[in-house]
């Protein structure tokens, strides 16, 4: 379902300078481990980390693995970030018990689907459920819908996570990412 959509979607055509900005913000925050299930919205950021010899990028089979992996990183004194699509948030819920109950920092950067301008009805349930499910399990949620505010939102979330030992999710809205329309692609 969501996975098929993920693999078929392409990176947005416009240069997302916010990607480069949050790469710098995450480097300044001391991020060493990047756990991710790819999303088109994260592709530029993933390429930046893959080109960075100081960062270990780990591809997961399901997003909840990343929650556990970054708990291990914290136990060993390293900071990490989890990159995922909103559909993957649903895969994480019980695993988030771990950072919540252990007061461990966790920084999640979530690219939204099922949000502004979505064309795929199957993305709606989890997209609309992303914030309430994260808040229900005890994750602090910051949503950003303006490209100019992405970097400062991630910076604030990183400070919150690592200074107060909380799981924090930044939701990057489809207004920032650009909504895609596969129906137009299918006509070509």
């Amino acid at each position, binding site marked *: 379902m969501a996975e098929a959509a993920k693999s078929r979607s392409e990176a947005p055509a416009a240069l997302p300078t916010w990607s480069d900005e949050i790469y710098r913000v995450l480097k300044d925050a001391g991020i060493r481990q990047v756990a991710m299930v790819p999303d088109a919205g994260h592709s530029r950021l993933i390429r930046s980390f893959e080109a960075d010899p100081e960062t270990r990028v780990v591809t997961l089979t399901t997003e909840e693995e990343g929650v556990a992996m970054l*708990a*291990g990183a914290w*136990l*060993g004194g*390293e900071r990490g970030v989890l990159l995922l699509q909103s559909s993957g948030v649903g895969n994480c819920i*019980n695993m988030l018990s*771990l950072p919540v109950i*252990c007061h461990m920092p966790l920084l999640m950067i979530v690219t939204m689907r099922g949000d502004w301008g979505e064309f795929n009805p199957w993305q709606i349930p989890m997209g609309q459920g992303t914030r309430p499910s994260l808040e229900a399990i005890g994750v602090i949620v910051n949503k950003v819908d303006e490209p100019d505010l992405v970097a400062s939102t991630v910076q604030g979330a990183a400070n919150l996570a690592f200074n107060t030992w909380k799981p924090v999710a930044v939701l990057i809205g489809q207004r920032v990412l650009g909504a895609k329309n596969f129906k137009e692609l299918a006509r070509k």
Partner: protein
Amino acid sequence: MTNPNALLHRRDVVNELLRDRADLLVIAGLGAPNWDVSAAGDHPNNFPLWGAMGAAAMIGLGLALAQHKRKVLVITGDGEMLMNIGSLASIGVEAPNNLTIAVLDNERFGETGMQKTPTASGVDLAAIATACGIRTSRIVRTMAEVTELRGLAHAGRGTAFAQIKINPEALVFVMPPADGVILTTRFRQSVLGDEALFN
């Protein structure tokens, strides 16, 4: 050894794996593996799980990558491993030298009434680990093999996986602290020093 076909006892296995543990870092999966590791002796370098089923192996990976000079041993159950069996693919790709995963396989969901897990029907976790690229992967049936596994875990010369066939016995619970903040803080203090308390 009186009966070479007898199933191993889980606490004998864990006591042997943790014998002279030195600075080994141990992640214990929820349920009986947690109680087994705690029965071998509460230790600040243990991180025993009380929930988050499916977390153990991946906590081990993140820890092994962060602490590449230390040896990390994950001790978990067959049900817990099966819940995130895909993590063996993630771990097989990263393949840190200092990570060993020991699955205590009683072929049962022990905490919930001893219902059978897929391993009772022949699902071969060691073969799955091999197929995921973990080359040192085996089924363990004897204490001599457990001792060999202990050697691998302490040497840290490659990611290792073992599916240890054990008796489905229900033993008395031996519990570590349940407070996740205590477990996290004392582990970090032990591994990272007092500095960990300040950041």
